[in-house]
């Protein structure tokens, strides 16, 4: 370990400890009368205003893994990796009108998870269970990947071994257990301040040192020209343009189906907070775009990723670039930004997964009469289990496995769109049709992912999400995003099954929500649990 790395480690360590202390103090911040309910522990009392929500959702969606993986993608493939920018431009206007409906109906009915909504809307605990399991399965590898973000910075500091990761996650688990959603909400302020600082310095300073942006793009193009791969370059080509647009759209459609995004939305205190945030959150997209360009800067600076066991780890290029360009103390700050950037989403994701388990599995199938305090207790414990699981995933399995799973996660979470997303807008679908569509979409998506090879990593299966249309017998090199294709299968099956079930007059669930519930705002009356269901059954 060199003296340079020692400085980095000290700065990193000090900031990390500071933030951890903040996580524990957060329980006292905007102190509620009691922490013993999911509304308080899991949703911060549903009381967050515009600023807190902006930091919270920003910290939630733009994760440490994003900061490390997006530039790695741009470093390796060029323009195709820049899809993260159109993705995060498209998403907010796309969900603007839908999320306010979700907030309103959840406010009236006290929903904590997307599966809570589906249960009430379609009168089907089984459909809700499927949605909950899909959400948990899609979120778990995402949490594990946050560790990959921390690991990349530790590797670049020359720290090896698993102990530091275990300690970091143990601390995270402890303060999430104690403070709930308030912890990531408070830490998000520090995380974002650090990220903005580092990125602004990086994009002003590094290109200047490398001879200007023109030179950075020139060096990148020169590198891509030399590689045998036809798909890379600083521009898209005829075969990957459609995939680029579909990946951006598909990712945008998927983003707010993830349970942790819903948690961030439901924690806000009224509809206007959400609308304002839909307008203000793209500020993060700007930073994300600049971060993506770090990939080209790394090329221009001649960075070579750290190689372990013969495999180059592309995720190390951003940490290495910082190490190469910045003075050691500022590199420490930059690493801390990435490390802390992992803690915020990991905390929110584990809370969201725990809430799904508590509300839609434990309460539904084990303890129908669970009290609010019991729900909070179960969620707190499950959030610990989820984190242990994430650490185990990284330590026991090849991290590549988590990356593959996360890729699959995006495709499978999209299969909840008809129930959750369309369900917010229309009650046309039959619950049986939604289940059939979900199953068909999942099967189609997994089959396509299985069929995708990756020649650069010598993998025969699960090599990416760009599905070549030639696999279906078309004479073309065009690739498309698996998630959207699977969603189309889902929708077609869902519509046909709904038409059939309606034609044979199959029993459908009772909708416990009313049209007016979707426009309710802060201060409007809430229904107490169960009254609507009872009313509906009597009617």
């Amino acid at each position, binding site marked *: 370990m060199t003296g340079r790395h020692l400085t980095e480690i000290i700065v990193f360590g000090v900031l990390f400890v500071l933030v951890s202390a903040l996580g524990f103090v957060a329980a006292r911040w905007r102190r509620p009368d009691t922490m013993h309910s999911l509304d308080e522990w899991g949703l911060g009392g549903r009381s967050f205003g515009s600023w807190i929500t902006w930091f919270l959702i920003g910290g939630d969606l733009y994760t440490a893994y994003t900061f490390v993986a997006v530039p790695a993608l741009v470093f390796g493939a060029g323009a195709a990796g820049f899809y993260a*920018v159109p993705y995060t431009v498209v998403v907010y206007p796309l969900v603007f009108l839908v999320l306010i409906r979700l907030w309103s109906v959840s406010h009236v009915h006290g929903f904590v998870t997307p599966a809570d909504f589906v249960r009430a809307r379609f009168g089907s605990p089984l459909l809700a269970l499927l949605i909950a399991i899909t959400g948990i399965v899609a979120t778990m590898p995402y949490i594990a990947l946050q560790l990959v973000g921390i690991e990349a910075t530790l590797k670049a500091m020359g720290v090896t071994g698993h102990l530091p990761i275990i300690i970091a996650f143990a601390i995270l688990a402890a303060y999430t257990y104690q403070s709930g959603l308030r912890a990531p909400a408070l830490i998000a302020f520090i995380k974002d301040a650090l990220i903005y600082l580092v990125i602004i310095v990086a994009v002003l300073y590094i290109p200047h040192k490398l001879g200007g942006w023109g030179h950075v793009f020139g060096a990148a193009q020169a590198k891509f020209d030399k590689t045998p791969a036809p798909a890379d370059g600083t521009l898209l080509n005829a075969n990957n343009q459609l995939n680029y647009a579909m990946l951006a759209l598909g990712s945008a459609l998927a983003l707010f189906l993830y349970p942790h995004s819903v948690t961030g939305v439901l924690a806000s205190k009224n509809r206007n907070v959400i609308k304002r945030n839909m307008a203000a959150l793209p500020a993060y997209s700007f930073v994300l*775009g600049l971060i993506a360009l770090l990939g080209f800067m790394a090329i221009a600076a001649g960075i070579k990723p750290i190689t372990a066991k013969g495999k180059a780890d592309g995720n190390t290029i951003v940490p290495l670039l910082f190490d190469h360009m910045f003075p050691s103390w500022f590199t420490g700050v930059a690493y801390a930004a990435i490390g802390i950037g992992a803690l915020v989403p990991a905390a929110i994701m584990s809370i969201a997964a725990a809430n799904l388990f508590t509300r839609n599995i434990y309460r539904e199938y084990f303890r129908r009469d669970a009290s609010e305090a019991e729900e909070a207790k179960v969620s707190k414990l499950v959030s610990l289990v989820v984190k242990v699981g994430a650490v185990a995933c990284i330590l026991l399995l090849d991290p590549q496995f988590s990356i593959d799973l996360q890729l699959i996660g995006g495709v499978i979470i999209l299969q909840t769109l008809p129930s959750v997303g369309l369900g917010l807008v229309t009650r046309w679908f039959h619950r049986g049709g939604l289940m059939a569509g979900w199953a068909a979409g999942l099967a189609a998506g997994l089959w396509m992912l299985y069929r995708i090879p990756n020649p650069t990593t010598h993998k025969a299966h699960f090599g990416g999400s760009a599905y070549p249309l030639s696999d279906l017998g078309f004479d073309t090199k065009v690739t498309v995003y698996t998630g959207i294709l699977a969603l189309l299968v889902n929708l077609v099956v869902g519509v046909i099954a709904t038409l059939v079930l309606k034609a044979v007059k199959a029993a459908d669930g009772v909708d416990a929500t009313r049209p007016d519930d979707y426009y309710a705002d802060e201060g409007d009356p809430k229904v107490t649990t169960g009254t609507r269901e009872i009313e509906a059954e009597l009617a």
Partner: protein
Amino acid sequence: MAETNTRPRRGDRSPWNWLLVLPVVVPLLTFLFNKDKPRLAGFPFFYWAQFAFIILGVSCTTVVYLMTRRGSGKKEG
């Protein structure tokens, strides 16, 4: 419970909402911006155009928010 409450029926309908279509569609039309020239401060068009779409997205959602918010007299704390 009979529907006797006198609260007017509410809704989110507004012609301003159509403005949201613009930032959803434009960034997906890759043929519009998949070019190198013109460059801006060394950035190929492909990159700076997509940065510009962020501004387009912010502008459209901001206008829709301002035009459709309720109870604009109430200040949020």
